[in-house]
């Protein structure tokens, strides 16, 4: 199952999260800082070789997760600016075989 990260401070990201919830995806909310998200949720998943992680966050939150994903040889599979809110980007991080 895919994991979806969204920054709950932004309405556009909340809408994105709600759509993911309807699809039954695992939803993880942040408010800028990714420390707890990464430490408690993503790190164990990535160590276990989890499926793709998707997200809609600010660029620095994404950047931080992108760098941390490298520790597991995971890479950015998709990345784009969010048209409705220029403070946000949407992204997919996963393995080469994903």
């Amino acid at each position, binding site marked *: 199952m895919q994991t979806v990260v969204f920054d709950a401070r932004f309405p556009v990201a909340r809408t994105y999260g709600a759509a993911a919830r309807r699809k039954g995806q695992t939803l993880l909310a942040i408010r800028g*800082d990714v420390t707890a998200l990464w430490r408690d949720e993503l790190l164990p998943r990535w160590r276990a070789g989890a499926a793709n992680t998707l997200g809609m966050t600010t*660029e620095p939150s994404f*950047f931080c997760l992108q760098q941390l994903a490298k520790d597991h040889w995971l890479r950015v599979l998709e990345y784009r600016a969010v048209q409705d809110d220029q403070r946000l980007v949407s992204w997919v991080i996963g393995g080469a075989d994903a």
Partner: protein
Amino acid sequence: MRIPPGVSQSDFAAAIAEFEKVVGKQWVFTGDEDLDLYRDAYSPFLNEPEERVASAAVAPDAVEAVQQIVRIANRYRVPLYAISTGKNLGYGGSAPAYSGCVVVDLKRMNRVLEVNEANAYALVEPGVSYFDLYRHIQERKLKVWIDCPDPGWGSVVGNAIDRGGGYTAANYRNHFDSHCGMEVVLPNGELLRTGMGAIPSAETWQQYKSGCGPWIDGIFSQSNFGIVTKMGFWLMPQPEAYMRCTVSLPRYRDLAPMVETLNYLENARITSGFPDIASPLIGYPPIGQIQLWNESGPPKMSDEHRKLLASVSLGYSSELEAFGLKSQIPYWQLWLSFHGPMEVIEAQWQAAQRHFSRIDGAKFNVVDRVQLPLDPAKVENFHEPEFGIPSLRAFSIGARSPWNPTPSKGHMWFSPIIPRTGAAIIEANRVFSQAARDLDMPLFRTFTLPACFWERSFIFILATPVTEDPATNKRYREGFKKLIEIGGHHGWGEYRTAPVFQKAVMDVYSFNNHVLRRFHETLKDAIDPNGVLSPGRYDIWPRHLRGQP
């Protein structure tokens, strides 16, 4: 397949095949997509042909594998570049100093080998991050603190051998100084242990630093004389309590006596925590508050205040000072912190106030009195690294916000060491603000205050942006080199820098016709005659590559 310069395709293919035998095929990386993971995200040559990139990467999980990799590299003359976790962004990341090196990625060597609570030390491998070590300690409920940088995502070993710093008590903040004992794979593949580790049966490897005879640990930091595979660190016994206080001073001229008093108090161990210098009047935050400022905005400033700030010189105008006095906004504010039994730190704070009271108009405030450990629910009210808690919140600093509408793509840290005096702070501002204007570099606003990581010197840190425009980056690179040169003329040299600037920085360390560089090269020739280990790191090149830019 990318090929290291000077290595034949057949030799490289043979070396790769042998690396695969040692670590397994899945831990040798030669494809572009995999190697992209080793690019420096903050490279000053972002997307330019000169960007320094790896030809391959190999990720061993044991010291014996590192030894074999080094021996194979010697056989085929393949240059290696060792990284721990490669997270020192702003100082080079995981990209090699010499393009075409095979990155030896040590992040799979991630074992916490020992944490000794009774004598407060740890022994770790290079792939152990600050988060890993912190978690190990917390899970076992051990009463010791780590000291971590901010962000704390990097390697404990890597940060120390890059000579990084942290935020707890003075004798732990300098990460290289707080190490005790190393294990190193030498350029010929032999294994060396330093200090008491050189005695096979010693139980004191992490208890006594220097052993007997020459103490050589320093040559394995910011260098290419070996690959560090284990390192010991002294940890801080968990303090009983913490107190954070401010000393506010009203006049510009108070800067010098403030620093002088701080130096005495810190060197006498009357204050122990990270001292943080701010200026409410200039609008310069303490490092510990930058995240809060970024998340919720800086304190409100009146139009009159803002207008006065626009016309100051070196952070001063008599009108601004008069405004501060009238409005009771301090010119300088020193944040002090204390660790220890509450009755001890209360007494230390009393002593600190007595010393600062000699400065006319000094005002004192206790911001926090906290029994430790911190309540987990309240941790985010603090700058976590000051409690030895690793965090990633620093990344919020670069976020687009009303206070930061055009965030940069990254940054290069310009970080010279300057004397720990008020006069040096003002002189560094004078010299570098003029240089920034001349070079048209966006480094300064009104005034810059230094960081107090080390006890007897300041680091005058300026962030030079990395952009997506190669022409702008080229201008900033050239400006950065000019800043290094200008600093050198004043006796100020960087404590650490990205590979692109390591030659320029080491040029400044020129005493006696660059005897320091010549000594490094003599060592390099003696212990790494094939020049396979991290060529060019901190401008130490093997003989056959000397003269590289």
